[in-house]
């Protein structure tokens, strides 16, 4: 198709007197991964729910796969799959039963549906757990199954709403791998996340959402350049801190630390500080994200830097 696979113009939504979306413009090209980055309450989930026909916008237009979400929701539903923040699988069924049920409900031919389910179990490393009840799955396994269910119909557009929120680092990395596989198939993806590193790892382009407005968009690199570089932060014994710019590569950090050692600075502790979503917000809006997200981002960044 020509033109964007997902497009919104002036999308507005309010719940009662609370404005959640105040005119959101987005465009995602076919095969592209757009990361929609923002703190809790920025309007990420609302955007995804409107695009996946679960919610009606108050104003503006939205098309997915060339179909208007309001006028032809059924056509949109045929093209999309949604993996939300809450895993949408039946806890009391096994992994395999979940895939078979959803294949039936998606009206896939029986044999093709089953074969596709088996392929996805293998792809997502769930074959061994296929006959276990989902209630016994780990958080990472649930998300993988959830994603597998969403891919049964080979959707052209995939919505991933905070796919790794609440996962441990290992499961998070596994899920990223799976998403990369899907993206390799040419699926268009709209990914929402609170994590800058996640957007960086998966997205071709990033749009930053704040209080219902898109306040910036570009490649993850563009954004980081606008925010500023990473720093080696050295806390000195007896107070005082030195911040030295770095590209966060091993040779550069080694060079900086060697330099610190040569100058015989009284080092209490040191760390590499990478720009976080909080920094992005501080730079772009002058206000920070809600407290709570920053701690997570800190750990994520530290891991990335180590």
């Amino acid at each position, binding site marked *: *198709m*020509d033109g964007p696979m997902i497009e919104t113009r002036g999308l507005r939504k309010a719940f009662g007197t609370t404005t959640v979306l105040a005119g959101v413009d987005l465009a995602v*090209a*076919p*095969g*592209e991964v757009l990361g929609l980055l923002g703190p809790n309450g920025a309007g990420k989930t609302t955007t995804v729910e409107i695009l*996946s*026909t*679960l*919610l*009606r916008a108050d104003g503006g237009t939205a098309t997915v*796969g*060339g179909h208007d979400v309001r006028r032809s929701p*059924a056509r949109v*539903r*045929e*093209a*999309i*799959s*949604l993996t*939300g*923040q*809450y*895993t*949408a*699988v*039946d*806890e*009391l*069924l096994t992994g395999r*039963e979940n895939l078979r*049920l*959803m294949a*039936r*409900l*998606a*009206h*896939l*031919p029986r044999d*093709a549906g089953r074969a596709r389910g088996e392929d996805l179990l293998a792809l997502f490393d769930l074959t061994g757990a296929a006959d276990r*009840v989902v209630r016994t799955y780990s958080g990472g396994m649930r998300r993988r199954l*959830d994603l597998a*269910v*969403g891919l049964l*119909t*080979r*959707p*052209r557009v995939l919505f991933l709403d905070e796919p790794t929120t609440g996962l441990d680092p290992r499961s998070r990395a596994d899920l990223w791998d799976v998403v990369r596989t899907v993206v390799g*198939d*040419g*699926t*268009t993806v709209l990914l929402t996340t609170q994590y800058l590193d996640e957007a960086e790892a998966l997205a071709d382009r990033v749009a930053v959402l704040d209080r219902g407005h898109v306040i910036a968009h570009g490649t993850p690199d563009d954004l980081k350049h606008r925010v500023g570089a990473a720093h080696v932060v050295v806390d000195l014994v007896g107070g005082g801190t030195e911040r030295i710019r770095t590209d966060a590569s091993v040779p550069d950090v080694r060079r900086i630390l060697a330099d610190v050692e040569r100058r015989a600075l009284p080092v209490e502790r040191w760390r590499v500080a990478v720009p976080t979503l909080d920094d992005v917000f501080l730079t772009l809006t002058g206000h920070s994200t809600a407290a709570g997200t920053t701690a997570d981002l800190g750990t994520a960044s530290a891991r990335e830097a180590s």
Partner: protein
Amino acid sequence: MTTTTATAPAPAAAAPVRPPRGGWALHDTAAMIGRSLRRSLRTPDTLIMGLALPIILMLLFVYVFGGAISTGQAYVDFVVPGIVLLCAGYGAATTAVSVASDMTGGLMNRFRTLPVRPVAALTGHVVESVVRNAVSTALVVGVAFAVGFRPTAGLLGWAGTAGLLLLYVLALTWVAVCIGIVASGPEAANGFTFAIMFLPYVSSAFVPPETMPRVLEVIATYQPVTPVTDTVRAWLTGVPGAHPVAALLWCGGLLLAARLVAAWLFRRRAAR
């Protein structure tokens, strides 16, 4: 729509399938019923609780309290219809918990993005409730026979009883569905099962309402459990007091109202 983009070929969508005979609605509902029945087998605690409770109550009433209650017939014959109704009511009410967990998890949103009418999920729960109650009612009646229940009903009496109980279970199940939709979660919905449990106590299920204080007697006489109990008791054991019209009106009216309210609540919750 053409797929001529150079950036990335869209993955081929699955070939469209012709709807089966009877259309997709039947197919979808069958899938949802299968789902609910599987779930039912995976929650043996609900099944066991739904059975153990009425059986314990039956033994308690027959052997402990029964001797002190005068009803004009063998107490076991008097109380079994009430126990059966209590069992069915409790069994139907647990549907609220299943519906609530569907509504609060992400599953309903997934159903809504599939080419399925999500109401089919509710139908699945209702049919499961009917099947589960049929099994547990049969077991409770079996135990009743073992403790001396001696009904005099012929085929017609049994058939009428089964039909009335089916209607009663359907009505209460749809009420439970409504509760499940509005409940904030499965735990909240669970409270409803206890409310339903108490309904038979203030009815003609265990003691004749005439023996109650005036206010309770009025409540007992005019609430739905009483005409249903009286009718089942009369049809099975041959005593007078059948109120089939009142019983049918109550159950049919409740079913119709709950069915409509459930559909409305479901749409409202879905439309937000």
